[in-house]
C-alpha cells in the first residue's frame, strides 16, 4: 500500500513539474527571451545527468561530486526561474503603466539618471579557519570524522561552485584554491557565499526507503514520461495558478538516494568589501554540533575580493581632439588622438601610435578630483571647448580641449560624465586597477590518502641509513618479483616437480632463507641480474622451465610454497611505509635501485635529488638543533649534522623536522 501512495505522489509531482515547465516556457516565449530558456533547459539536462550518475555510482567520492553538481544545478535553475519571473513582472508593470498613461512611453527620452558601467568581480583564495577542540588534534585512535565541503558563490543570476574539499581534524583551515570571476556585475552587486557540507561516512540509502523505491524516485526525474504528458495536454490550457508556488514546486527533485549537502554557513559581500588584499569577513553559521554535517568553524572567512569595472579596463571613448598649448598668444592647437581609459585620458600623436602601443604624447588624469567643464564658445571656432582641471601638487593645471564638431564635443562630455558616474559608483575600485588573475589550467590534485597516523607520513630516506635500507629494498624487490612470478606461471616451480628428487631439493632446503629469492632472477632475462654468479649456477635449472606444472604433486607444491609464504610475512611488517616509498621511487623512474644494488648505492640515491644550492637551510637547521642538543643533552640524531647534500628534499626536511619536533627541548629555527 505505501508503494501505491508513493507512486501517486510521484505522478502528481511529475505533473506539477511539467506544468511548471510549460508555464516557464510560456513566459520565456512571451518575453521573447530564449536565452534564459536555453539556460534552464541546459541545467535541467545537467541535473538529470547528475541524478543518473548518483544512482549509478558506487564510490563515495563520485557520489559526493555528483551530489555537488546536483545542488549547483538546482540552485541555478531556481535562480533562472526567479529571474524569468522578475522579467515577466517588469514587463507586466510596464504594460500597465503604459496603458494608464495613455501615451506610449518612449524609451529614448533623455536619461537623467545614468547607469554605471558593469565590471568584473573576482573572489579568490577563500579560506575558512576551523576551530577543532584541542582534544581532537591529539586523538590518534578512532576514525577520522570527515566531511565534504564546497562553496557556492552567487552574484545575481550567475552561480559558481568551488571544488570539493574533504575536511577532517587534521586540517586547520578549509582552503579553496579556485578563483571565481563574475563577468557582468553592477556596482551594487551582492556576492552571496554559501558553504555546504555533507558528512562522508554515513550510509547513503535514504533511511528505511527500500532500494527499489529509491531507484524509482531517482529515475522519475528523467522526463521522458513527462514529455509524453506534455504532448498529450493542450499547451494553451495551462493556467498560471501555479504561479505563486512556481519557484517552490520545481523542488530540488524528490529524495534522491545519495549524499545530501546541507547549508553550513553563509555571508554576503558587496562593494564595500572589495579591496586589493586579503580581508576577513564574518560568517553566519547555521547548524550546530548535533548535525551530522557539522564542522567546527571559527566564524570567519578570509578571501580576496577584487573588482575591475569596465571603465578601468576598456576604452570608454576615443577620437580626435585638439589641445590648446598652454601659454602663447595667439593660442595654438595640437592635434591628438585621445583615448579615455581608466583614470586617464591618453593623448597620442596619431591613432596608429595607440594601436602600436607607443607611449602617448601626454596623459591627462581623469579622476575623482578632476573638474571638467565646457567653456563658453570660443570666438574663433564654433564648437565649445572642454576644460579639464587637475591639481598636480599644489598647482592647478588646466588643459583645454576642443573637438571637431559640436556633436563630438557633446559625445566627449557624455563620456566624461559617464566616467564620473562610474567612478562615484565603483568608489575604491577606480583608484587603481586591481589585478584579477585568471585561473590557470588546473593541475591534477594530488590525492594523499591520510591514514590517520603520523607514522605513515614518515618517509624512509635512503640517505639516512644507506646500507641497511638498501638491503631491505633489495630484499623487498626480490620478494616482489617473486610474488609477481607466482601470479603468472612460475616456471621455476615446475623445476621442483620435475626434479629427480633427492639432490636438488635438499640443496634448496639448505639455502631456504635466501634461495627462494634468488631463483626468480635466473629465468628472467629482462632484468639485469645483480648476481652474475647465480646465473651460471642456475642455468641448468632454466632448461626445464617450460614444462607444465599442472601435474605436479601437491605435496611438493605446498612444500615449496610454504617457505615463500613464510618469508613474505617476515618482511611484511617492515614494508608498510616502505611500500609507499617504493611506489614513489618506482614512479620517479628510480630504476637505479632495482638494478644496481651491488654497486655503491649512494650514486643511485643521489640521482633524483635536484642539485640546489641553498646550503644555509640545512646548516642553520642542523646547527641549531645540534647546538641545542649539545647544550641540552638531547638525542638529536647525528645524521642531521654535516649532511653532504645541499638543500634537502621536502621529505627529508619533514623527517628532520619531525625528529626535532619530537624533542620538546628544542627551540627550532628555520631560515626562510
Amino acid at each position, binding site marked *: 500500500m505505501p508503494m501505491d501512495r508513493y507512486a501517486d505522489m510521484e505522478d502528481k509531482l511529475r505533473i506539477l513539474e511539467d506544468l511548471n515547465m510549460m508555464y516557464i516556457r510560456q513566459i520565456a516565449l512571451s518575453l521573447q527571451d530564449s536565452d534564459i530558456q536555453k539556460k534552464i533547459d541546459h541545467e535541467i539536462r545537467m541535473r538529470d545527468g547528475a541524478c543518473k550518475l548518483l544512482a549509478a555510482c558506487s564510490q563515495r567520492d563520485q557520489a559526493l561530486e555528483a551530489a555537488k553538481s546536483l545542488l549547483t544545478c538546482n540552485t541555478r535553475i531556481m535562480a533562472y526561474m526567479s529571474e524569468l519571473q522578475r522579467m515577466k513582472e517588469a514587463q507586466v508593470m510596464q504594460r500597465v503603466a503604459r496603458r494608464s498613461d495613455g501615451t506610449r512611453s518612449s524609451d529614448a527620452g533623455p536619461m537623467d539618471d545614468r547607469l554605471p558601467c558593469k565590471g568584473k568581480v573576482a573572489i579568490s583564495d577563500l*579560506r575558512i*579557519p576551523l576551530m577543532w577542540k584541542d582534544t581532537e588534534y591529539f586523538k590518534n585512535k578512532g576514525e577520522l570524522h570527515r566531511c565534504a565541503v564546497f562553496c557556492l558563490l552567487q552574484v545575481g543570476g550567475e552561480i559558481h561552485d568551488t571544488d570539493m574539499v574533504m575536511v577532517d581534524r587534521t586540517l586547520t583551515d578549509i582552503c579553496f584554491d579556485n578563483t571565481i570571476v563574475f563577468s557582468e556585475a553592477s556596482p551594487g552587486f551582492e556576492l552571496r557565499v554559501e558553504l555546504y557540507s555533507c558528512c562522508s561516512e554515513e550510509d547513503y540509502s535514504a533511511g528505511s526507503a527500500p532500494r527499489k523505491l529509491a531507484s524509482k524516485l531517482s529515475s522519475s526525474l528523467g522526463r521522458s514520461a513527462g514529455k509524453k504528458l506534455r504532448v498529450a495536454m493542450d499547451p494553451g490550457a495551462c493556467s498560471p495558478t501555479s504561479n505563486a508556488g512556481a519557484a517552490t514546486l520545481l523542488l530540488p527533485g524528490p529524495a534522491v538516494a545519495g549524499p545530501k549537502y546541507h547549508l553550513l554557513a553563509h555571508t554576503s559581500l558587496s562593494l564595500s568589501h572589495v579591496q586589493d588584499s*586579503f580581508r*576577513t569577513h564574518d560568517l553566519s553559521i547555521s547548524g550546530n554540533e548535533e548535525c551530522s554535517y557539522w564542522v567546527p568553524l571559527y566564524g570567519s572567512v*578570509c578571501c580576496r575580493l577584487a573588482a575591475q569595472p569596465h571603465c578601468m579596463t576598456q576604452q570608454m571613448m576615443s577620437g580626435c581632439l585638439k589641445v590648446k598649448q598652454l601659454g602663447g598668444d595667439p593660442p595654438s592647437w595640437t592635434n591628438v588622438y585621445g583615448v579615455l581609459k581608466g583614470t586617464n585620458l591618453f593623448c597620442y600623436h596619431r591613432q596608429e601610435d595607440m594601436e602600436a602601443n607607443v607611449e602617448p604624447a601626454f596623459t591627462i588624469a581623469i579622476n575623482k578630483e578632476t573638474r571638467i567643464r565646457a567653456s563658453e564658445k570660443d570666438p574663433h571656432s564654433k564648437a565649445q571647448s572642454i576644460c579639464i582641471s587637475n591639481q598636480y601638487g599644489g598647482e592647478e593645471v588646466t588643459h583645454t580641449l576642443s573637438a571637431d564638431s559640436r556633436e563630438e564635443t557633446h559625445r566627449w562630455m557624455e563620456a566624461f560624465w559617464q566616467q564620473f558616474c562610474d567612478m562615484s559608483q565603483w568608489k575604491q575600485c577606480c583608484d587603481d586597477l586591481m589585478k584579477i588573475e585568471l585561473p590557470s589550467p588546473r593541475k591534477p590534485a594530488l590525492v594523499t590518502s591520510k591514514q590517520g597516523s603520523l607514522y605513515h607520513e614518515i618517509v624512509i630516506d635512503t640517505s639516512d641509513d644507506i646500507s641497511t635500507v638498501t638491503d631491505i629494498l633489495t630484499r623487498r624487490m626480490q620478494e616482489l618479483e617473486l610474488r609477481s612470478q607466482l601470479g603468472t606461471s612460475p616456471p621455476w616451480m615446475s623445476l621442483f616437480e620435475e626434479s629427480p628428487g633427492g639432490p636438488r631439493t635438499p640443496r634448496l632446503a639448505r639455502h631456504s632463507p635466501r634461495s627462494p629469492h634468488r631463483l626468480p632472477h635466473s629465468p628472467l632475462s629482462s632484468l639485469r641480474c645483480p648476481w652474475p654468479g647465480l646465473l651460471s649456477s642456475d642455468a641448468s635449472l632454466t632448461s626445464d622451465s617450460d614444462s607444465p606444472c599442472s601435474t605436479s604433486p601437491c605435496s611438493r607444491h605446498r612444500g615449496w610454497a610454504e617457505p615463500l609464504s613464510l618469508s613474505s610475512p617476515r618482511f611484511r611488517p617492515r614494508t608498510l611505509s616502505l611500500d609507499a616509498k617504493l611506489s614513489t621511487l618506482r614512479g620517479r623512474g628510480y630504476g637505479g635501485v632495482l638494478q644496481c644494488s651491488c654497486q655503491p648505492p649512494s650514486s643511485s640515491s643521489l640521482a633524483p635529488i635536484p642539485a640546489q644550492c*641553498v646550503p644555509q637551510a640545512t646548516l642553520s637547521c642542523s646547527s641549531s638543533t645540534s647546538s641545542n642538543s649539545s647544550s641540552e643533552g638531547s638525542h638529536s640524531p647525528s645524521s642531521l649534522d654535516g649532511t653532504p647534500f645541499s638543500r634537502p628534499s621536502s621529505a627529508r626536511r619533514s623527517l628532520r623536522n619531525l625528529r626535532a*619536533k619530537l624533542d620538546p627541548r628544542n627551540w*627550532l629555527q*628555520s631560515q*626562510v
Partner: protein
Amino acid sequence: MSFIPGQPVTAVVQRIEIRKLRQGEHLILGFSIGGGIDQDPGQNPFSEDKSDKGIYVTRVTPEGPAEVAGLMMGDKVMQVNGWDMTMVTHDQARKRLTKKNEDVVRLLVASLLCNASPFVQTEFAI
C-alpha cells in the same frame, strides 16, 4: 634587541612588505624564524612573555630582502598575507612564508622598542 628591565617599552605594530629574492630556484626572504605552538617558549630570547608561543624573527640576513624592507631581529610576526601566525606550529609558519607561488609577503609584525633608544618611533599602523 636588549631589554633593560624597568625601562618602559613601546610596542609598534607595522605592516612590512617583503619582496622575495630569487636565488637560483628558490625565493628567499632573508631571515630566520623561531617559535611556534609546538616549541618550547621558554627558550625564546626575544619574547617579553616567556609563555608566548608566537613566531619571532631570530636573525635577519644583512642586505637581504627582509632587512631592506625594515624587518628587525626580535620582531614578532603576527600575520603573513592574511594568515594568522600567532597560533601556528613552527612548520606551518615556515610553510606560509615560503609559498612558491607568492613573490611578495605582507607581514604584520610587532616590534618592541626600548625607549632608551634615541630613535623613538611613534605608533603607526599602515
